[in-house]
C-alpha cells in the first residue's frame, strides 16, 4: 500500500520566536527552520511500515514556497521514496491546506495518510482531521501506536484520560503524537541519495481550488511577562512565603 505523508516547514523547536516591533507577525528572518517534529515522526512511521513490508511506497508532500524543498529532502533522506511540493508563497489557512492535500489524495490514492497532530508554529491541530472529513475517511488522531490488520488499521490514541484504541476502515488518516516512535537520524549516504530521489513541483494555482483567505491576522503581540521571582534559601522560607505572601496554601 501507498502511504502519503504531508510535512510542514516550521521554526526549529529549540528557537524562541520574537514578535516584530510593528506587531504585524513574528520575525522569521534568519531563523533556523526545520521539519515539524510531529511530521518527522509521521515520516518515520511510514518508513517503518515500508521496512516491515506493509507499505510499498512512501510519498512526502509539502505545501509552501521553494524553501520547503529542504524539508522534503530531509523526508527523502529519512526514507521516503519521492516528494511533491505544492508551490505557494501564501500562508494558507488549514482548510485550504487540507483541500490541496485532498487533490493529492485523489491523484495518488494512498491507503494511509500520516500527518503530524499539530505544527509547532501555528499550533492549530486541525489539518489531518479536515483532510479526513474532505476525503470521507476515518481518522485516528494523536496516535501512539498503529497496526495494520487486513482492511483495517488499529490506532491507539493519547487522550486526556489515558489511552483509547479504535479501529478504522482503510483508507484512513492518522495523526502522530510524540510517543509513536523515535525518528532516526538521516545518515550521510542517505542524505546524498535523497538528492537524486524524484521531487516534483506543482503550482498551487493549478489545482483549481479557491484559496481565498478565511482569516485575517490583525496583530501579533508578545505574551505578558511574568514579574521576576526570588530564590528562597530553605524549605522553611518557601513554606512561609507560600502561606503569608502568595497565600496559596494554608
Amino acid at each position, binding site marked *: 500500500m501507498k502511504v502519503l505523508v504531508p510535512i510542514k516547514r516550521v521554526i526549529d523547536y529549540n528557537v524562541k520566536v520574537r514578535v516584530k516591533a510593528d506587531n504585524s507577525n513574528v520575525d522569521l528572518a534568519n531563523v533556523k527552520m526545520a521539519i515539524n517534529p510531529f511530521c518527522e515522526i509521521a515520516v518515520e512511521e511510514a518508513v517503518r511500515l515500508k521496512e516491515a513490508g506493509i507499505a510499498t511506497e512512501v510519498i512526502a508532500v509539502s505545501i509552501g514556497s521553494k524553501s520547503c524543498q529542504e524539508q522534503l529532502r530531509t523526508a527523502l533522506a529519512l526514507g521516503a521514496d519521492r516528494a511533491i511540493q505544492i508551490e505557494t508563497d501564501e500562508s494558507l489557512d488549514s482548510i485550504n491546506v487540507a483541500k490541496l492535500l485532498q487533490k493529492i489524495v485523489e491523484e495518488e490514492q494512498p491507503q494511509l495518510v500520516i500527518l503530524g497532530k499539530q505544527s509547532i508554529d501555528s*499550533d492549530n491541530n*486541525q*489539518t489531518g482531521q479536515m483532510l479526513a472529513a474532505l476525503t470521507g475517511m476515518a481518522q485516528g*488522531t494523536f496516535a501512539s501506536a498503529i497496526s495494520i490488520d487486513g482492511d483495517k488499521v488499529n490506532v491507539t490514541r493519547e*487522550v486526556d484520560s489515558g489511552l483509547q484504541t479504535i479501529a478504522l476502515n482503510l483508507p484512513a488518516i492518522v495523526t502522530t503524537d*510524540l*510517543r509513536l516512535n523515535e525518528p532516526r537520524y538521516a545518515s550521510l549516504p542517505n542524505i546524498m541519495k535523497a538528492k537524486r530521489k524524484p521531487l516534483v513541483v506543482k503550482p498551487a494555482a493549478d489545482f483549481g481550488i479557491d484559496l481565498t483567505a478565511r*482569516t485575517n*491576522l490583525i496583530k501579533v*503581540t508578545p505574551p505578558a511577562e511574568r514579574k521576576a521571582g526570588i530564590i528562597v534559601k530553605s524549605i522553611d522560607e518557601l513554606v512561609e512565603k507560600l502561606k503569608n505572601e502568595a497565600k496559596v496554601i494554608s
Partner: protein
Amino acid sequence: MSILVFAEHDNSELKADTLKTVAAAQAMGGEIHLLVAGHNCQAIAEAASKVNGVSKVLVADNAAYEHQLAENVSLLVTELAADYTHIIATALTTGKNFMPRVAALLDVTQISDIIAVESSDTFVRPIYAGNAIATVQSLDNKKVITVRSTGFDAVATDGNAEIVAVDQVTDAGISSYVSEKLSVSERPELGAASVIVSGGRGMQNGENFKLLDGIADKLGAAIGASRAAVDAGFVANDMQVGQTGKIVAPDLYIAVGISGAIQHLAGMKDSKVIVAINKDAEAPIFQVADYGLVADLFDALPELESKL
C-alpha cells in the same frame, strides 16, 4: 446570533471545562445552546441544564455517540449547525478530534485554542508555544472555534434550561471503538486542580514519583509531568503538561526536577504562583518561577512534605 456549545463529558460527569467554554460563548454574545452527545447520558443533560447562560440543552443519546467517535459526532454537529452562527467546543482531546471535521464539512477554517474574545468574529490565540499571541479575525460565515479553558472563568450553575432530545442518529460506520486504558486516580484532574505538583527527568524513575504523593495529598494537588518523564516511562501520557500535552493554570504549580524548556513552559506559565525546585541554579525554569529553591529534590521533597 446563536451559539452551539459542545458539552465535554464522559457519560458520567459533565466536565467543569464546559462552564468556562460557556463563558467564552457569552463573551461572543447571543443565545447559547448546549449539546450533550453520548450514551446513557441523561445525568449529563440534567447537569447541563443548570449551567448559567444556557437556554436549551440538546441531548443526542445513542450508542453511536458513546465513545464520541469523531466520524459520528462531526456528522451530528454538522447537521445541527444549520441553526447556529457559532459552533464551539473545549480544546481538549474530544473537541480537538472532531471539531476540525465539522469545520471542513461546513467549508470553514477553525480558530483553534482561543484564550480571549474580542468580538463575535475576532479572537485571541497563542501561537509558537505561547511565545506570541495572535489576534485573528474569522472571515467565514460560520465560526468553528475551540476554547482553551484556562482563558476563561467558569459560569455559575444555578440555571434552569429546557432539555430537548435530538432524534437523528448519524453513524458513519467507518470507525469503531476497541478498548481503552484509563488512568485511575483519586486525585483531582490536571485541568480542574488548584494545585499541581509536576516531576521531570530529575525524578530519575517512576518509583520516585511517590515522593510527590505525600505533598500532593497534603495540598489536594494533581500530579503532572514533563515530556521527558513521560517518554522515559516514569508516568502515564495523560500527565504531560506542555505545548503538546495539557495546558494548565492552577493557583500553585510546583515544578520539581524540570528544566523549563519552552514546550513545558507553554503548558503552565499562566499559573498564578510557580515554584521551582531544581539543583541547577541556571535552569530556565527559575526565570518564570515566583519562588525558586536550588536544591537536590531528594533532600527537598521529604522536608517539604514534613513542613506542610
